[in-house]
């Protein structure tokens, strides 16, 4: 494994270093130009038709001009020079087989004293009219460029008056070249790229893909790519798709939070339209609350994030809901094994649109929620087997004026579990439905609700402001009634609620071509509420009760400023500063960041690096005692005098290269250290009671101890896209370590989610009708504590010595390596005037039962672990219709 990793990296490094320079262009066919006082536009069009070369020109430039030329040869440059001779125009090659016709005298890339202005505009989707954030805008002649902001707006100042050749690109869209005039707010519509067989990647297009993002480790995934990768449950799921990316794992076999570069799930921040979502999971963390089709863009910053974001140590995922189609009504519906869903979007007026999406599981509709039953003795009962989850996503978007835009976003997701069943369950479902004196009831529900409003205003072509107001709440409740005997009873009710009200004001100021400022303030009020009311009746008169309530409020404030500085054509530097304060404990932290990108060659080698500090004021703690509220016992606990905020420092270095037209190579290295993270005070503590010591924050904190951690590693990936084929391969090697100094730990030990090595690959073929993909992952198993000795102790009440296994070193071993391969097959067809897509997902095709936990029986003659296994092979199906 190590050998293959080294070979891999040497090859990769070699590719990065060896490829340099561009191949000379040779025009195979002979070019013949013969014109005599011919209108120039006619000549250019004929030239374009005969050679297949793409010529971009503004009509007003060529109007009235004539060309006289005779040329025969195989040089495109010479042929065009001949054609344009005497017209005051010239042809500039912008990429292979594409030229732009510009004036000989205007917009020369020389800083002269000519009048200057701002080249600005909005980039939108040509099919839906929606804004495209993070689109690339480049002026090749000037070797400058920028990225559109969240409203799809861009501005490039200090350009001389006249027309400029501008190239727009965005992953998943056709590259568009056009001529734009300064001081005019343009609207550029990009055409979505069709994922069809036979599509050819034009060689020089890779130059357009050169990312202008300065922060290393950013993943920016178009929704189409998310949908094309294998997932779980039959439907595209963002979090399952991210599993195929290097350095990202899931906590459990298929469920559980995301583990990014060895961090814990609570160290990830999830944002929908700028508002935090605290528990983005359905179905016991099996699938995410993110309904993929509803998003315009998803960004994931791993480890290092810009000054605008803070409050977490590991990652930030920012998803932006779609505005809704501005051109025509559109509807989509789908049915998978887990749920049915729909998306409707439509223009309302020429300046307004909406998007509405819903999803609901339907298992409860098939087996029923309530079952009135009776038996021969006339006993009646109503058993319950209800479980469902649902989501609502909605967005209303209005262009108030050409300069301002207002949008309202809404998200509501909820899971509801309602069970009342007899104890003696078997796999025969029909045997469940009978009156029972001894039963258990579980009534759980949890979910998020989010309201957000965003107002964007373009004060001037250089100054853009965005104001976000949001109300985001997470609520969970669990009620349990367990009656194991006629005289014993557990009745507990646990509630937890977290509500944020927040305001975010951000501004973009384009000072010059060298400096673009992004700044803002963020204020959030957190309100935490929790209560527990528990009662255990052990016998007729023996009873224990426990009642706790807890209320905490805290204000979280932050201000930040960040400059994207371009001192030279090749270097982009992004220094940033974030100052944040937290009212509980009165903490104030200044967390600087510095990122830089150096473009050795826009195609062959781009280098990124950076350093940042982060602080996290909220930590996720799980009660480690009680079974009674097991499923909702995880609570967010704010920093206070007793618990310091978690802090981290991260340095990262990344490289990107496109050595072949269809091949993209990336490499990222990172180093991170963490302080004041909370580790379990007793890592071997297992839940062993119906009601624990309670839910007071102090009680929870007593189960944890401050810890320090360190993580480092490299991530290498190769991405090959040629015609209908897409092949991704990645390798990640690294460590995540921690220790608890207050418990006497002197050396770092593997953290709970330490994965030293992982390799992933996705091979996909996207055709006109058939899509097929194979995705596989092989990684080290999670750390595990292996007993190192055995001994006996006879306590005062013991008749015989009792055997124990000695476990002096936590996480000293490792579970077996995890390996899984999934296959996805999709078929598109038309029927009844509707576009259908059927998708079959085969989960774990090798039927390998991966081990996710292991126990040891101390009474066995020799030590042998008993494994808890993950899911076997599962076929999953989805059917989708688009209107």
């Amino acid at each position, binding site marked *: 494994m190590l050998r293959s990793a080294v070979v891999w990296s040497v090859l990769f490094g070699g590719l990065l270093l060896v490829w340099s320079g561009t191949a000379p262009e040779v025009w195979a066919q002979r070019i013949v130009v013969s014109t005599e006082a011919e209108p120039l536009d006619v000549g250019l069009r004929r030239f374009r038709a005969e050679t297949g070369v793409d010529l971009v020109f503004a009509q007003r430039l060529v109007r009235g001009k004539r060309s006289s030329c005779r040329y025969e040869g195989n040089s495109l440059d010479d042929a065009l020079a001949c054609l344009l001779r005497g017209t005051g125009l010239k042809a500039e090659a912008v990429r292979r087989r594409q030229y732009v016709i510009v004036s000989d005298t205007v917009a020369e890339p020389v800083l002269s004293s000519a009048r200057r202005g701002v080249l600005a505009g909005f980039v939108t989707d040509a099919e839906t009219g929606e804004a495209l954030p993070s689109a690339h805008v480049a002026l090749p002649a000037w070797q400058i460029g920028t990225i559109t902001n969240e409203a799809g707006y861009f501005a490039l100042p200090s350009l001389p008056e006249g027309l400029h050749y501008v190239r727009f690109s965005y992953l998943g869209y056709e590259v568009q070249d056009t001529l734009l005039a300064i001081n005019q707010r343009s609207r550029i519509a990009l055409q979505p790229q069709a994922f069809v067989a036979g599509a050819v990647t034009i060689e020089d297009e890779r130059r357009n893909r050169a990312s202008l993002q300065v922060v290393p480790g950013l993943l920016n995934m178009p929704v189409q790519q998310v949908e094309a990768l294998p997932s779980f449950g039959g439907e595209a799921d963002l979090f399952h798709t991210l599993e195929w990316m290097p350095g990202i794992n899931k906590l459990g076999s298929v469920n559980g939070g995301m583990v990014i570069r060895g961090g814990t799930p609570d160290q990830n921040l999830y944002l929908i339209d700028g508002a935090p979502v605290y528990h983005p999971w359905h179905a016991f963390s099996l699938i995410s609350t993110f309904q993929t089709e509803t998003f315009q863009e998803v960004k994931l910053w791993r480890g290092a994030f810009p000054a605008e974001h803070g409050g977490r140590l590991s990652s930030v995922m920012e998803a932006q809901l779609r505005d809704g189609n501005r051109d025509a009504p559109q509807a989509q519906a789908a049915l998978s094994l887990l749920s049915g869903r729909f998306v409707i979007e439509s223009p309302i007026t020429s300046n307004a649109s909406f998007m509405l999406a819903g999803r609901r599981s339907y298992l409860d509709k098939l087996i029923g929620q309530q079952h009135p039953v009776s038996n021969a003795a006339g006993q009646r009962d109503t058993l319950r087997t209800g479980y469902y989850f649902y989501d609502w996503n909605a967005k209303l978007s209005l262009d108030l004026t050409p300069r301002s835009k207002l949008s309202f976003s809404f998200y509501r997701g909820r899971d509801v579990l309602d069970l009342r069943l007899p104890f003696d369950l078997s796999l025969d479902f029909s045997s469940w439905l009978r009156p029972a004196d001894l039963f258990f009831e579980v009534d759980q529900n949890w979910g998020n609700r989010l309201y957000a409003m965003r107002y964007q205003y373009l004060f001037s072509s250089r100054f853009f402001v965005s104001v976000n107001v949001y109300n985001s709440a997470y609520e969970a409740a669990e009620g349990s009634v367990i009656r194991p005997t006629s005289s014993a009873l557990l009745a507990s009710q646990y509630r937890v609620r977290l509500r944020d009200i927040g305001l975010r004001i951000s501004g973009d100021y384009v000072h010059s071509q060298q400096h673009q400022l992004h700044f803002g303030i963020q204020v959030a009020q957190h309100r935490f509420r929790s209560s527990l009311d528990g009662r255990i009746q052990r016998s007729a008169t023996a009873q224990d009760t426990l009642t706790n309530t807890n209320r905490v409020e805290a204000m979280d404030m932050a201000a930040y400023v960040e400059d994207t500085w371009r001192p030279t054509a090749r270097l982009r530097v992004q220094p940033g500063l974030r100052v944040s304060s937290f009212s509980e404990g009165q903490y104030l932290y200044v967390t600087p960041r510095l990122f830089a990108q150096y473009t050795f060659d826009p195609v062959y080698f781009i280098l990124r690096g950076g350093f940042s500090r982060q602080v996290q004021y909220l930590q996720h703690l799980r009660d480690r005692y009680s079974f009674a509220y097991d499923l909702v016992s995880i609570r967010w606990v704010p920093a206070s005098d007793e618990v310091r905020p978690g802090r981290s420092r991260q340095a990262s270095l990344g490289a990107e290269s496109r050595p072949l037209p269809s091949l993209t190579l990336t490499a990222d290295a990172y180093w991170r250290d963490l302080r004041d993270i909370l580790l379990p005070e*007793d890592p071997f503590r297992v839940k062993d009671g119906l009601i624990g010591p309670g839910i007071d924050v102090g009680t929870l904190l007593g189960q944890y101890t401050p810890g320090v951690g360190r993580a480092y590693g490299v991530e290498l990936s190769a991405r090959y896209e040629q015609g209908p084929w897409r092949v991704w391969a990645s390798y990640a090697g690294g460590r995540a370590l921690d220790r608890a100094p207050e418990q006497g730990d002197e050396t770092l030990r593997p953290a709970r989610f330490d994965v030293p090595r992982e390799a992933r690959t996705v091979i996909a073929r996207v055709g006109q009708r058939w899509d097929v993909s194979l995705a596989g992952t092989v990684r080290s198993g999670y750390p595990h504590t292996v007993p190192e000795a055995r001994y006996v102790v006879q306590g005062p009440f013991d008749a015989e010595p009792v055997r124990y296994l000695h476990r002096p070193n936590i996480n000293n071993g490792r579970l077996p390596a995890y390996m899984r391969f999934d296959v996805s097959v999709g078929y598109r067809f038309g029927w009844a005037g509707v576009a259908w897509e059927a998708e079959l997902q085969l989960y774990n095709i090798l039927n390998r039962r991966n081990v996710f936990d292991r126990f040891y029986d101390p009474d066995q003659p020799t030590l042998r672990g008993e494994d808890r296994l993950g899911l076997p092979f599962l076929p999953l199906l989805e059917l989708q219709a688009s209107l």
Partner: protein
Amino acid sequence: MMRLVVVLLAGLCGAACDSGGPVAPEQLVVEAFIEASPQTPRVVVRRSGLPDASYAPAAALVDGATVHARTAAGTLTFAPEAGGTYTAAVGLPARTPFKLEVEVEGARATASGLVPPQIALADIAINVPDTPVEAVLLEGFDLDSLGVTLDEGFIYPIEVTLRWARPAGYSPADSVYWVQTRLAPVVAFTSTVLDFFLLAEDVFNEQTAWQPGARRYEWTGVYAILVETRTTPLPVHELDVGLLRSTEAYARFARTRADRDRREPLSNVAGGLGIVAGIALDSTRLHVPQRPMASTPQTVGEK
């Protein structure tokens, strides 16, 4: 730049730099429960064994050790007996802090403790219900096969209340003690679900059991006796009742003894394993008689 190169190489190295696997240190296992005089202290010394080899407790006993208990008043020397057992000629007075030292073949294990004042069960009240109750007798889950081994039957849930007095010469310094209680019917049964609802054993801070009105400590536990039918009277059975006072170190040890497949009990022995604690212990075996159905609950045993 050099540091980044180091990080890069370290990351590529990945698991090759991972721990090479568990080691198997052979350690002293010290077991000492020291009661106040006139009881004479006794210490058992063993060695731990390799996890992959068979391990016989009798073969693990260590002879030839030097055992001392140091107190403010002097040093108590333990004499070896057969089979890894060491005893002192005299006992330690109540409320005496001590430090136990065990040395053998260059290995040294130490632990500190405090001898608590004596404890005595003042009375035991047993409350038996009129009739047995229906109960699930769930023995365990097999999550991998979704199989559930389950039966329904009848049990008598029997409440037992233990009461004991404050130690003689009580002072605020005596508030540090913890108590372990135990109800052990001689014929017992286990049920995964029912065990959560029964309370046959408990470990708690003694002060939480103080009843100011009655001016004594009180604890109520519940154990169960399995019967065949709804009309079966409570069978005659024996009940072992235990009451133990000790320090927090013992409480941690006692509380962490369950879930042996997951963990080991917390030890207070430095340089070794096991537990060294001063204890005060009182126990008795009660004869719980058969009683007719529907009789009035009453105290059937008293010490």
